């Protein structure tokens, strides 16, 4: 009750008291009781016309009503059984036109979306959902209404999938997912690219299994691969896998060597041939260096300064050379690593200064135990762990907390390890004859190892924008939300196929912008940003990824229904079974009319006599 209401009540009370007093003061005291009653009644009714009068009503008949909602994938048989067993009053609805047609014997009523149902029918006992359930949007609009989910069995086919659409040259295309095979026969999954079968796998009959398919894409630019599911000769499913291969952005490297060695020479040759910018400083004598500038301009390297280091992403140095650097030089390396994210790779078989910032997290020691003649090394690479045998036993690194071992042997002894240092990264390797792998023709192991080490040390590449698409598999004529993260909090200008996308800033994260659009064409789409960047987006047909979408709905609805079910269970004992209904004002009006008419008539006719 607001203060306004109190005032009204007070005014009414005052009026009633005044009128009652006036009635009692009247000379003609006949019908006094009746007059007082009608006065009080009239005033009260007047009050209730302003302030609605509610009464508690036992649950109306409508509340016993149940609603059955049909969604995609519902099973007519289970619906039939449900309808036969339930004696409640129910109505059958759907928002899917195709279901409307298929479920004709049940006489469903079309309603555009479930949210409308809540508005139109005031109360019902339960909402039964058949099929795979609601989409995310629909659930949002359900307004926390409880739902009883009669889920259909899991959709057959692909129920989960993941791969990265945007690859750098040389990266592996790895498709992982889960396939639900409900057939009595095994299903063969085939990855087909450029009309060639690249990888395949068999899912046994009647099983849900995860799978992994891999290939090295060979194109530069966009191409659409196909994921086929074959049962015998029938194609069960055929989905497009769009892949865009981009050329790599090279890393700028400075090599500081205490002496010329083959390790640096082979590394240098490999990187040079692939267009990397390299500067190599090899010590000859005290303060005398041999300098090599590969794909790079000449810079002064006699002294290691901030200015010099700013030109590079990664520094590769021998432990001896680092120990020979002056204190200022070392400090500038340290500050660039810590504050600017420079990567430092140290090649060492022992540290002259174990307390130095680059040596501290990596205690190096020589094994005294029996070391086998041939080491088999493992490291995590793109494809799988690549074993390669090393030569004579290099020094070992003791693992300390905060470091990440990169290369180890079968006995988990560490030969290369990394750790974070401020914004930058430190990598220490004791491997000293990896070039022999190249001599032995094991190029792939050599490339894989050094790619991994350099990649680990390199600072993250500087793309100005980062964007995210939701849903991950956008479909034709369905809303797509794009989230951009930009470096500067300025409203981004983004075009999709020459039409603007309008962005809304995230109130808490000023760098995050979200926009919506509805793709009108399937296939590759160009997204252009104001700084001339071209991004690609692949839009699928509405019929694509059916089972994935169905599974998504299934999961969401199940979760929602489960949450709501628990809420109901908690709330039920407290909840009254009565409703508060406002009494229609017409009744009060009539009472006022009768009351005032009586008072008027009584005064007019009685007073005459």
């Amino acid at each position, binding site marked *: 009750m607001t203060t306004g209401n109190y005032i009204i009540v007070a005014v009414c009370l005052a009026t009633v008291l005044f009128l009652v007093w006036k009635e009692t003061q009247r000379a003609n005291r006949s019908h006094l009781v009746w007059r007082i009653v009608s006065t009080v009644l009239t005033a009260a009714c007047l009050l209730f016309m302003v302030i609605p009068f509610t009464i508690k009503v036992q649950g109306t008949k409508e509340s016993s009503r149940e609603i059955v909602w049909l969604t995609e994938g519902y099973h007519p048989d289970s619906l039939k059984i449900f309808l036969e067993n339930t004696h409640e009053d129910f109505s059958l609805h759907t928002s899917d036109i195709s279901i409307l047609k298929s479920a004709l014997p049940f006489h469903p009523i079309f309603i555009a979306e479930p949210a409308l149902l809540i508005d139109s029918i005031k109360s019902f006992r339960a909402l039964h959902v058949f099929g795979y359930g609601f989409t995310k949007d629909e659930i949002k609009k359900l307004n926390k209404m409880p739902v009883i989910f009669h889920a259909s069995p899991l959709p057959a086919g692909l129920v989960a999938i993941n791969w990265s659409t945007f690859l750098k040259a*040389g990266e592996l295309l790895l498709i992982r997912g889960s396939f639900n095979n409900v057939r009595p026969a095994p299903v063969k999954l085939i990855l087909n690219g450029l009309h060639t079968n690249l990888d395949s796998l068999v899912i046994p009959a009647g099983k849900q299994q995860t799978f992994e398919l891999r290939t090295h894409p060979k*194109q530069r630019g966009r*191409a659409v691969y196909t994921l086929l599911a074959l049962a015998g000769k029938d194609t069960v499913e055929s989905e497009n896998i769009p892949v865009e*291969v981009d050329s790599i952005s090279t890393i700028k490297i400075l090599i500081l060597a205490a002496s010329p060695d083959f390790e640096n020479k082979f590394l240098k040759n490999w990187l040079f041939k692939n267009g990397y910018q390299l500067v190599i400083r090899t010590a000859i004598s005290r*303060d005398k260096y041999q300098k*090599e500038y590969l794909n790079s301009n*000449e810079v002064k390297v006699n002294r290691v300064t901030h200015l010099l280091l700013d030109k590079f992403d990664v520094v590769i140095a021998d432990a001896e050379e680092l120990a020979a650097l002056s204190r200022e030089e070392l400090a500038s390396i340290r500050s660039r690593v810590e504050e600017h994210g420079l990567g430092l790779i140290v090649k060492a078989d022992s540290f002259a200064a174990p307390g130095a910032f680059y040596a501290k997290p990596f205690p190096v020691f020589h094994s005294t135990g029996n070391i086998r003649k041939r080491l088999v090394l493992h490291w995590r690479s793109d494809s799988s762990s690549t074993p390669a045998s090393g030569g004579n036993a290099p020094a070992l690194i003791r693992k300390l907390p905060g470091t990440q071992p990169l290369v180890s042997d079968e006995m988990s002894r560490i030969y290369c390890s990394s750790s974070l240092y401020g914004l930058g990264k430190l990598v220490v390797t004791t491997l000293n004859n990896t070039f022999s792998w190249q001599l032995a023709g094991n190029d*792939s192991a050599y490339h894989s190892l050094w790619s991994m080490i350099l990649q680990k040390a390199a600072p*993250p590449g500087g*793309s100005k924008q980062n964007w995210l698409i939701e849903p991950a598999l956008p479909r034709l004529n369905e809303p797509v939300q794009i989230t951009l993260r930009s470096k500067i909090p300025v409203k981004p200008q983004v075009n999709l196929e020459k039409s603007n996308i309008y962005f809304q800033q995230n109130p808490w994260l000023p760098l995050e912008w979200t926009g919506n659009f509805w793709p009108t064409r399937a296939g590759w789409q160009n997204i252009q940003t104001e700084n001339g960047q071209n991004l690609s987006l692949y839009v699928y047909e509405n019929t694509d990824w059916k089972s994935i979408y169905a599974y998504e709905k299934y999961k969401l609805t199940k979760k929602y229904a489960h949450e709501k079910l628990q809420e109901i269970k908690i709330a039920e004992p407290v909840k009254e079974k009565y409703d508060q209904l406002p009494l229609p004002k017409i009744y009060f009006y009539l009472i006022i009319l009768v009351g005032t008419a009586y008072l008027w008539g009584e005064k007019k006719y009685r007073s005459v006599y």
Partner: protein
Amino acid sequence: MIELKGRKVIRVMLKKWKGISFLSDFLLAIAVSSFLSILLFKILLIPLYWGIIEFLMSFILLFIIHGSWKIKEIEVARFLNRMFPQMEESADLLLRSDESLNQLEKLQVAKIEKVITGFPPPKEWINQLEVSALLLLATIGMCFIIAMIPFSSGNIDPRNSFNFKKAALPKTEKVPASVASISIKIIPPTYTGKRSRQQNQLNLQVEENAEVYWQLSTTTSQKEMKFIFNDEASLLLQPLNKEHTLWAANKYVKETGFYQVQAGDKLSELYKIETIKDQPPVINMESPKPYTVIDFGQPKHVIMKVAISDDYGVASAAIIATIASGSGEAVKFKEQQLSFANFMSGKQQYQLSKLLDLPAVGLEAGDELYYYITARDTHGQENRSDIFIITLPDTAILMTLEGMTTGGNLVPEYFRSQRQIIIETEQLLREKDAIPLQQFNNRSNNLGLDQKLLRLRYGKFLGEETGNEIGGEDDHDQKTDPNKAHTDARDFGNASAIMDAFTHKHDNAEDASFFEPELKAQLKATLAEMWKAELQLRIYKPGQALPFEYKALRLLKDLQQKSRVYVAKTNYKTSPLKTGNRLTGDLDKIQQPVKNSALSKNEEPVESMRMAIPILEDLKNGIRVKKENIEILERASQQLNLSAVLAPAIYLASVAAMRRILEHVGKPGDIKSADIILVENAFQMILPRYSKLPVSSNTGPSTTLSGQYFKNLNRLRQ
């Protein structure tokens, strides 16, 4: 009427006979033709429908042989006479007209007519039918079995084994539009020994360096005709007649590639040229082993067995033998060439053998013979086998004392004994004629005894405890017999004697051996030789014991060499360093070399193909391509051509498809998706993988917000 009835029966029988023999011929023909056609299909890949022709031919043949249409009534009658005694040899009477019969014959006819109607169809005919039906069944069974057997030679169709090849090969060759007929004569080079052949298809598969002679006749007169090879070289065809409708050209085909025919302005599709390279001869040495040692006493000859084969023919084969004699710095080499006696030039397969008589070749004791086989094929390509070695050890060296007088004297005394046994054996053999038999046998036996003692001495190194077995141990149970220990009264109270009975004394400190397993194995082998030598000596055959004695000696010498380790003595003193002068040099004049190099920005040749793939994808979706992209496509097409030159069988169809795409590139709607599939397929095969290179990770922009966070975190840490 009566006469007619008999005749009718015979006629019916004739018909039946003809029918049955026809039917059996039919069944037989099916059997023969199905068997033949399945065999031909399996071996020569002749299609199965040829079986119909085979069937018709065999059926006609059988029909003619059996001549069933020729059967006449009289033959039926004779047959009936033969088969049925009831006919009383008078069935032919039924065939004669009534008038020609006399009374008796009429009576006979009336008699047999009663009989004839009751005859069942003759068993012989039924048998004939049954036999052919059974034959058919049997052949059908055989056919099934044959169909199951995988034939290694014929039925592996290379096109089936690779998916892409199937797609890439044009099934039927398209003749250029204006060309009416083609005749190609291929003259293989002489080394192949093949005759020239003719074909009327433009796709060529020829031997390397074969001469190809084309003759084309055109429907209309042409101004000019030429062949364009690999998109580069062109060859003009010469007109052979005035109307310019008959053209010819010839060329020696040296490399694989492709060509097309240009008639006027029109270009034909591409035709492939595949060359078959000559393979060098293959030499397979069957005996002897790569390294053969001929010990004393073994026959001094070696049987050599060689298999030589070549794809066209072997022209010559020889043994190149080198004898190395002498030792140290005075090694002499003598090379000689030996020929095979049973070699006849020109065949493809040879199974050669030669008895190598070592003394005849000039091999003496202590020499080594190195030899290999060379073979030259008709094309002049030569191949040679690995080098094989035969050694003839010199027994004289074994007897020298060198190597035993110097160095570590591990077990020298026993070696000398073995040598002594050999010397004495040889002495005994020399004196054999001079001494009486009894003495000879005695001395031989004594030598055997010596050999035994020697063997036992060595046996100790192996831990042998008795002389019965090489390397064997004693039966331990015997010694643990307690009764035996108590038999001698004198040992009463002798603790060690009692201990002896219950303990098992293995290694005495003196005999303890610490040999490696390998050394032990060799020692065992030595003992085995000694065993054999002893046997021969004990049965008074010292001559036959000699090879074993020598072998034992050789093995012992090897053993001696093996167990030796040399450590070279070093004695070198350096002058001490003056530490005060270190690191004080003048470095001014040391140059600081600077190297400067940049990678020339040449794109990888395959890059155009990589970039062409997205363009093809666009074309597939009917999107128009930009001008610069057409250039990329053209460059990719050139790259594809290069691949096709090397392997036309695989990539030629893709080259043609690429050309069609480039023709219609202005109108993406006209491009067939099959062409794009062909080209993309080829790209996928040609393109190598991207090599793995380090890339900086892309984790999105580092924002000022996270920068602030990092700074504050750092401050808090300090």
